[in-house]
């Protein structure tokens, strides 16, 4: 992984994924180290994402690295029409690694091709968000003790939800049984199902959430995002179809944990928050350790 960009979860083999998760476990035990001392990390957020940006910045600062960059495109030279290539080449003069988030799909792959320093993709439009995927895997392994042979239920927008696509593809390494709950209009795209079929794994599709809760080890809830819909009417029809509340969990397995990439709107009721099976806030904290592991392994410091 040394000096290699992380653009898409498909860039990592199963072994590399496990290596990152193992390293993240070490950082969780000891998150404040001087691993990145003397290193400058550029954090280029061409679109705002406070949650992801703070997670990265916290990861860097706890490891004594320094951060330069911008939090949105309108305060940077990008607003003056600078091309992505020029921005990347300029910033690479001042940094050892670039974390970037950009609203255009494929921008991170392109940046990784023109940049002399490694790129970590912190989200490129509706395409990829590999660090989210790795923190999801970390959260699953941490709560279940394993990634293998689990019943994992995805709920909500399976069509446009990039976190779902990346995670589903990554889970194909681990003999997962997939339960896919979505409105008919928002089913998992065939390009993602192809990976499941190629791995010869089981999947079932549902429109109702109730029938699958009790069989699940993980329920991965997602927000139905207005901005991903080309047609606003399509969004209005489906925006409130799923709502997970505490009473629905009464027959669920003890080891069930509920994940959500956050922010949530109303797909999980607040009465679930106090249930021990709610894991979405700890999941976000795991993001810091996983990002520390990714930074350290790309910069070959661990």
């Amino acid at each position, binding site marked *: 992984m040394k000096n290699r960009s992380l653009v898409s979860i498909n860039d990592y083999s199963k072994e590399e994924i496990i290596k990152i998760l193992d390293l993240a476990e070490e950082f969780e035990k000891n998150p404040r180290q001087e691993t990145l001392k003397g290193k400058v990390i550029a954090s280029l957020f061409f679109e705002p994402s406070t949650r992801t940006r703070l997670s990265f910045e916290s990861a860097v600062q706890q490891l004594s690295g320094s951060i330069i960059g911008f939090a949105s495109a309108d305060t940077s030279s990008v607003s003056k029409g600078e*091309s*992505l290539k020029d921005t990347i080449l300029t910033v690479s003069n001042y940094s050892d690694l670039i974390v970037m988030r950009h609203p*255009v*799909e*494929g*921008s991170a792959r*392109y940046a990784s091709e023109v940049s002399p320093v490694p790129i970590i993709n912190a989200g*490129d439009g509706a*395409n990829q968000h590999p660090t989210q995927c790795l923190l999801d895997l970390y959260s699953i392994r941490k709560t279940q003790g394993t990634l293998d042979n689990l019943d994992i239920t995805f709920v909500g927008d399976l069509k446009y939800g990039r976190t779902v696509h990346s995670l589903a593809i990554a889970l194909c390494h681990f003999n997962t049984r997939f339960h896919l709950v979505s409105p008919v209009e928002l089913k998992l795209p065939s390009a993602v199902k192809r990976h499941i*079929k190629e791995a010869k794994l089981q999947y079932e599709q549902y429109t109702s959430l109730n029938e699958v809760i009790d069989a699940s080890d993980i329920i991965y809830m997602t927000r139905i995002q207005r901005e991903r819909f080309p047609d606003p009417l399509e969004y209005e029809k489906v925006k409130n179809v799923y709502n997970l509340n505490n009473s629905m969990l009464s027959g669920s397995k003890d080891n069930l944990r509920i994940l959500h990439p956050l922010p949530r709107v109303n797909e999980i009721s607040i009465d679930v928050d106090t249930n021990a099976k709610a894991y979405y806030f700890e999941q976000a904290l795991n993001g810091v350790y996983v990002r520390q592991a990714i930074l350290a392994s790309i910069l070959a410091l661990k």
Partner: protein
Amino acid sequence: MNKKRKELIVSAINNGTVIDHIPTESVFQVIRILGLDKTKNQVYFGTNLDSKKYGLKGIIKISDTYFANEEINKIALVAPSATLIEIKDFEVVRKANVTIPDNIEKIVKCFNPNCITNKQEVPTRFSVIYDENGNLKLACHYCEKNTSKENLTFV
């Protein structure tokens, strides 16, 4: 139509390449893909010609020009049935079919309007894949979306 008259429709060449059995509607695309609109050599073409096998076909003849395989294979997306005949001193020296390459660069647009290749000056790159029904698709190297044959547009 006898054989002699048929040959007269598109002039014979003594040296160069004949691309035959092009779907008639793809002739102009083939010309563009191979850059024949910019060549200094003589180019003859015909469209809506009768073909026993295909109904209507197109043909292109280019003087003093021979194509590398990877170059000619670019036309396979629009003219998979095309055949290639190379001529030297009026003799046919090579016949070949086109084959669809594994990778397609620059000639096709990504159908995703939010792809970096449609937003900034980035040349397109695709790998050729087939879905479970055997339909050809182009997987974008950048945005990772698949462009299907119906959505193909050429740069």
